[in-house]
């Protein structure tokens, strides 16, 4: 099995396109770093942060009181802000006043869908291209069961996605700490959940952000892989998956504003961050519900891909 994965990995990394992808991610990180560095204003916060925070809390509390009961989302958001700011005052933790290496890695997570795009392209091609070049015939006359061949391809795609994520994380860390330093050595992240403020290590927080933000990418990669295996069509797989990557979230929130069943849509569940920082798309959704939904979609995609691939007659 691992030999099959080595095979697939070799095929990916012997193509020039893969290096273009890596270069584009690096370029994206560098562009973002440069932009932030150039537009950043010099730090003048100094010791005034306590006064500023107290002021902020007062304002937030006032807003909270004035707000109508229907604005549940906004209220929760304000409650969170108040709680975190209060915690900072009580524990003498200054808010990050400028960009640090840590915050830069956090901001770079915006590029995850970029990395996802490349993983989707690989996923879309990994089965379909074997069919279009005819090499599938040489793969399938080996003494290896078909599900193993497909599984090795899927594992390779996921590994490639993780690799791209690592490229993004490491390059933005290197650039971030290089350009902005580590800040004041204060590497604590404050998270808010269930009305309580918790201190977390920055590193752990960032890894969590990266992995959680990758869930929608993982699902779309799986979708692209499924289409690739079922329809043997590279462009169809890329087209549908990228369209959904761009539009899926927006369309879902539009539907969610009107209809409750939106919570069964894949994209209402892919953003697990909503349960840690913020509010769910549809009222009443829980982490458990989303995980179950994700599993259902995942199993559906995989069942289709494996069912069709292992039964198909290879003609043409």
């Amino acid at each position, binding site marked *: 099995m691992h030999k*099959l994965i080595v095979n697939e990995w070799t*095929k990916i990394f012997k193509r020039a396109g893969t290096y273009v992808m890596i270069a584009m991610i690096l370029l994206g990180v560098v562009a973002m770093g440069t932009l932030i560095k150039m537009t950043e204003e010099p730090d003048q916060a100094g010791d005034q942060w306590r006064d500023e925070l107290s002021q902020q809390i007062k304002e937030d509390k006032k807003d909270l009181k004035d707000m109508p009961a229907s604005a549940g989302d906004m209220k929760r958001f304000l409650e969170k802000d108040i709680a975190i700011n209060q915690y900072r005052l009580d524990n003498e933790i200054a808010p990050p006043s400028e960009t640090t290496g840590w915050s830069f890695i956090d901001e770079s997570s915006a590029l995850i869908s970029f990395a996802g795009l490349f993983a989707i392209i690989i996923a879309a091609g990994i089965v379909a291209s074997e069919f279009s*070049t005819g090499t599938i015939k*040489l793969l*399938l006359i080996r*003494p*290896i069961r078909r599900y193993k061949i497909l599984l090795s391809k899927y594992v390779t795609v996921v590994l490639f996605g993780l690799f791209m994520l690592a490229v993004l994380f490491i390059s933005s860390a290197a650039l971030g700490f290089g350009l902005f330093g580590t800040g004041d050595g204060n590497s604590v992240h404050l998270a808010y959940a269930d009305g309580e403020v918790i201190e977390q290590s920055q590193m752990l927080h960032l890894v969590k952000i990266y992995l959680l933000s990758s869930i929608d990418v993982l699902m779309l990669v799986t979708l692209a892989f499924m289409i690739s295996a079922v329809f043997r069509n590279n462009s169809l797989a890329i087209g549908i998956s990228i369209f959904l990557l761009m539009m899926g979230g927006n369309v879902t929130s539009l539907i969610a504003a009107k209809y409750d069943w939106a919570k069964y849509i894949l994209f209402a569940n892919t953003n697990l961050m909503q349960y840690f920082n913020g509010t769910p798309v549809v009222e009443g959704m829980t982490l458990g519900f989303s995980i179950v939904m994700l599993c259902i979609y995942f199993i559906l995609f995989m069942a289709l891909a494996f069912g069709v691939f292992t039964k198909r*007659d290879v*003609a043409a």
Partner: protein
Amino acid sequence: MGTALELKNVTKVMKGKKIIDDVSFTVKSGEVFGFLGPNGAGKTTTIRMIAGLMKMTSGEIFICGKDREKEFEEALGHIGGIVENPEMYKYLTGYQNLKQYARMSKGVTKQKIDEVVEFVGLTNRIHEKVKTYSLGMRQRLGLAQSLLHDPDVMILDEPTNGLDPAGIREIRDHLRKLTREKGMSVIVSSHLLSEMEMMCDRIAIIQNGKLVNIQNVHDEAEAETAHRYFFEVESGYASILKEKGIEYQEVEKGIEMELEKDQVPNVIKMLIEHEVRIFEVKLISKSLEDRFLEITEKGGTTIA
């Protein structure tokens, strides 16, 4: 000789149509077995079912005694093949391609790869990208990949498609060498009659999904029975032949008659004794093409 491959009542139905209808045959070890038929007769479908690319609707296939369905991995381990044009990863070198396939079978060593590369004569170019290869070289690389795991049965679907005469001859020589030296069985499909006649020991003729006939190409048993001989002679033969009761047809420049091999010297002697001048005597062997057309036309359909 043992049995390398056995098909038992193999049937394939696609979209309600019987593509392959109850085909059974066996291939002995060390034999080159040809699959001949007009386009669309079911050659490729049969070969794909043997190689595991297609499922059968019913029937059984045994490869070196292993059931292809139930013992898939063991059975396929004995098979090496090229199905139509050998498709390779063009962005990899020949060597990298072979390594890909080496990783998919158990126990293929580096020496084995080098040995195979040398066998097909690609040593000089093996580290170049496949996209720079000519069709003949790709064909040779295809042969190399199918030999990596020392298969007992080689399957070649239209191996000479698109090759020039030199390339065809090369493939033929390789196949002969493999069957003689390694006792490998080879199954070849083609619609080129002359090609098949030169390559194969036995030929199965398939038409409309049915196995019509299996022919021995170099049939020694056939020598015992009557053959047709051509005699280039001048006049004066008519009376003597009639007297002996030998039937003949007059053709251009001479006569043709059906004789057993033993009779030939006698007839010649007889004609000479009667002072008939003989310039040439030759056996008219029925070419495979004649036999093929004869058989397939009996089936009712003509071949395009």
